[in-house]
C-alpha cells in the first residue's frame, strides 16, 4: 500500500512543481526603462507600454514615469506598483503638484526664468475662487465689502503687487448664513482643484491637467475652447436657490457653443479659441493674489486691433531666448523666428501666435485649430468709436453677430 501512496505522492509533487513552473514563467516579461533624470530603472512599461508620451517637453527617455507619478518603480504587482502614487492617476493635482511638477529646474523655479507656474496657479483666481466667495459673503452680509479675504485654501503672497498678502481658507461649515453654507455645498465644483460634476460634459481632471490634459495621458498648450467649456460654459449658478442650473440646449455648432453669458459677440470671438486671445497670466495667474476675475482679465478687442488713434502694441523678437519663442516651441503653429514682429498686450505679454505682416495687417494662427486669420487695425477705418469707450461691449454695439 505504501508503494502506491509513494507513487501518488510523487506524482502529486511533480504535478505541483510543473504547475509552479508554468505559473512562474507565465508572468509578463519585465520591460525596463532607465530615465536619464533619475538614473534608476523602472518597470512601469511592462503594463503601460500603450500609453502615449505625455508631451514633447517631457520625453519618456528623460522623465520616465516615476519622477512625475511616484509609485513603486520595481513592483510588477499592480497593487504595490500603484501604492505611493502621487495624486492617484493625476500627479498634477494641486495637493501633490509641488512634488510631481515642482522643483527649481521645472515648474516652481524663479519668476525671472518663467518657471514659477505652480506659484502662479496656486494664487490665481481659478484656484482661489476668491471673487466668487467674496461676492457671496458680501451679498449675504457676512462681510462688509467686496474685498477678498477667503480662498479655497489658505495662501500667502509676501511680495504682493495687488495689496492682498494672504487669503484664509474658506470654511462654509463655520458660516452662520445658510445660503453661504449652501453655496459651499453646491457651488464649489469649478475651481481648478475641485472634483468636477459627474456628467460627461463637465469631465476634466484637477490641477494642471484640468486645462492641459485634453486627451488621456497628453499634456498640451494647444487648449481648445471645449476644454474651457467643461467649467465655463455648462450652465449657471442660481443665486436664489444656490444651485447649479445646467444649460438645457444641445449646442451643435461652434457659434451655439460660444460662451453663453456673453449675449453679444463678434465673429472672431467664436471662431477663435479662448487661449488665442486670453494670455497665460490672465488664465494661470501672474503670481499675485487677485480679488476677482476682473482684476486679472484685461485683454480686449483693442489689444489686437488698437483704437482709432493708436495701433496695437508690437515687438520684434531680437534673440533666441525670447519668451515668445519658448512658448511657440511648445505649440509650433506659427513658425516664429528671430526678427519677426508680433503683437503684445498692454502688459507686455507676447501674443506669440500673431505676426505683423508687411502690408500693415496682422495674422493670427489658431493655437488649437491651426487656422490662419488675417485682420486689420481699427486706425484708418470708418469706425466711430469714442476714445474713452474701449470696452468690448462698445465694439459689440456694431460688430455683433446673431447666435
Amino acid at each position, binding site marked *: 500500500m*505504501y508503494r502506491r*501512496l*509513494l507513487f501518488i*505522492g*510523487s506524482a*502529486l*509533487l511533480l504535478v*505541483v*512543481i510543473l*504547475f*509552479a513552473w508554468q*505559473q*512562474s514563467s507565465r*508572468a509578463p516579461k*519585465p520591460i525596463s526603462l532607465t530615465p536619464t533624470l533619475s538614473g534608476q530603472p523602472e*518597470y512601469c512599461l511592462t503594463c503601460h507600454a500603450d500609453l502615449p508620451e505625455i508631451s514633447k517637453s517631457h520625453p519618456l527617455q528623460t522623465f520616465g514615469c516615476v519622477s512625475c507619478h511616484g509609485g*513603486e518603480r*520595481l*513592483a*510588477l*504587482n499592480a497593487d*504595490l506598483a500603484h*501604492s*505611493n502614487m502621487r495624486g492617484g492617476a493625476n500627479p498634477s493635482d494641486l495637493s501633490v503638484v509641488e512634488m510631481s511638477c515642482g522643483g527649481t529646474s521645472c515648474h516652481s523655479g524663479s519668476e525671472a526664468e518663467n518657471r514659477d507656474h505652480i506659484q502662479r496657479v496656486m494664487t490665481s483666481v481659478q484656484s482661489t475662487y476668491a471673487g466668487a466667495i467674496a461676492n457671496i459673503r458680501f451679498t449675504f452680509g457676512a462681510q462688509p465689502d467686496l474685498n477678498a479675504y477667503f480662498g479655497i485654501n489658505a495662501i500667502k503672497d509676501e511680495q504682493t503687487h495687488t495689496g492682498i498678502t494672504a487669503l484664509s481658507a474658506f470654511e462654509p461649515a463655520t458660516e452662520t448664513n445658510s445660503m453661504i453654507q449652501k453655496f459651499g455645498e453646491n457651488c464649489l465644483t469649478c475651481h481648478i482643484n475641485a472634483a468636477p460634476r459627474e456628467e460627461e460634459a463637465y469631465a476634466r481632471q484637477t490641477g494642471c491637467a484640468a486645462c492641459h490634459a485634453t486627451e488621456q495621458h497628453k499634456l498640451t498648450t494647444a487648449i481648445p475652447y471645449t476644454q474651457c467649456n467643461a467649467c465655463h460654459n455648462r450652465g449657471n449658478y442660481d443665486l436664489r436657490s444656490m444651485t447649479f442650473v445646467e444649460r438645457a440646449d444641445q449646442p451643435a455648432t461652434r457659434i451655439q457653443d460660444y460662451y453663453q453669458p456673453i449675449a453679444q459677440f463678434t465673429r472672431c470671438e467664436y471662431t477663435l479659441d479662448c487661449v488665442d486671445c486670453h494670455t497665460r497670466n490672465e488664465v494661470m495667474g501672474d503670481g499675485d493674489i487677485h480679488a476677482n476675475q476682473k482684476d486679472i482679465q484685461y485683454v480686449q478687442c483693442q489689444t489686437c486691433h488698437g483704437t482709432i488713434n493708436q495701433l496695437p502694441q508690437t515687438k520684434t523678437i531680437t534673440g533666441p531666448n525670447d519668451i515668445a519663442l519658448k512658448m511657440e516651441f511648445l505649440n509650433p503653429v506659427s513658425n516664429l523666428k528671430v526678427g519677426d514682429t508680433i503683437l503684445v498686450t498692454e502688459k507686455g505679454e507676447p501674443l506669440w501666435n500673431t505676426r505683423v505682416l508687411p502690408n500693415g495687417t496682422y495674422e493670427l494662427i489658431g493655437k488649437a485649430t491651426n487656422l490662419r486669420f488675417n485682420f486689420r487695425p481699427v486706425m484708418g477705418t470708418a469706425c466711430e468709436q469714442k476714445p474713452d469707450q474701449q470696452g468690448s461691449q462698445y465694439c459689440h454695439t456694431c460688430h455683433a453677430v446673431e447666435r
Partner: protein
Amino acid sequence: MRPSFFHHLHPPTIPAAQSRWRYTLGAGGTAIFLALILTITGALEMFYYIPTPDQAAISIQTITYFVPFGALLRNLHFWAAQLFIIVSAVHLVRVVFTGAYIPPRRFNYLLGLALFVISILLNFTGYILRWDQGIQWALVVGTNLIKTIPFIGDSLYQALIGGTQPGSATLIRFYAWHIFGLMLPAAFLVGWHAFRVRREGGIALPPPTLRTDSERITRNELVRREILAMLFTGSALLVLSIFTPAPIAPPIIEMSPLSGEVRAPWFFLWVQQMLKWGDPFFWGVLIPVIILIILILIPYIFPRPAESELGRWFPKSSGLAQVTLAIIAVAIIVLTLLALIPIK
C-alpha cells in the same frame, strides 16, 4: 537493500505504535522537514537580500519580481515559516494531550519549548527584515514593549535596537539574529532534541512489559512514511506558495507606528488584542511570560499520567494539565480572532 546514510539516521526497527499518524500526527517530523526547507530557501534569499534600510524592501522587490523563481522562493520561505509555527504548536499540544512529557522526557520537553520560543523569534525577526510599511507598526510597538520592563527595559531596548529608535542598526541586528544568533542555537537544539528522543526510547509508549501491541516496523518502512509525509507537505507548501503570495508593501518612508499597516504578525495578534486592555507591561510582557512559565511547569506541578497510560490521547490522570493547555490555546485563538475583526 543496503541501508543508506538516511536510513542509518533511524533505528533498525521501532515499535509500530510510535509512527502511527493518529498518535503522533507526524508533527515533529514535519517541523524538521519545514526547518530544512526554511534553511535552504533562506540561504538562497541571502544571495539577494540587502540588510540596509533603504535597500531592504527594494531587494525584496527584486527577489519577488526579477529573480527567476524568486517569488516562488520567497513564498516558500514565508509559508514554511508560518506552517512551522502551526506544526510546532500542534506538536506541543500533542505532547501535552498524550502526557508524553513525563520523565525521562521532561527535559526534552523543555528543549522543545525553547525551540518553539526561538522559532517565534525567528519568525518575528524574519518579518522585520521586510523593512516595508507593513511591518513598522509591529516593529515600533513590539520593541517599545521591551522598554516597559522594569529596571532592565531601557538597556535591553538599546541592546536590541542599537539606538534610541529603530534604524539601520536595528535592521542589521535583526538580520544577524535571524540568520546567526537564532538559527545557530535552533540548529543545535533540533539536533539535541532529536538525539534525546532516540536516547529516551523513541516516541513515548508504555514500558515494553505493559505494551499490548508488539508489532515493529523496519527503518525502511519508517523512511518510506517520512518520504510520504514530505511529498504531501511539500505539495501543500507549493500550492500555498503559488496561490497566496507572501505579503509585500512599499518601502518605509518615515518610521512611524501610525503609517502603514497597523497590525502585528498573525502569531502576535493575541498580544496586540490584549494591549488594548491597558498597561502594556502587564498585558504585553507579563501575561505572555506567565503563559510560558505555566507551559514550562506543566511536567513539574500538575498530576502526571502513569507510564501505562502513555501512547494514547487524553490519559485521565493528567487531565488538569490538558485542561490548562486547552484553556490557554482557546484563549489565544479567541484573542487572535478578535484582533482580526476590522477596526471601525
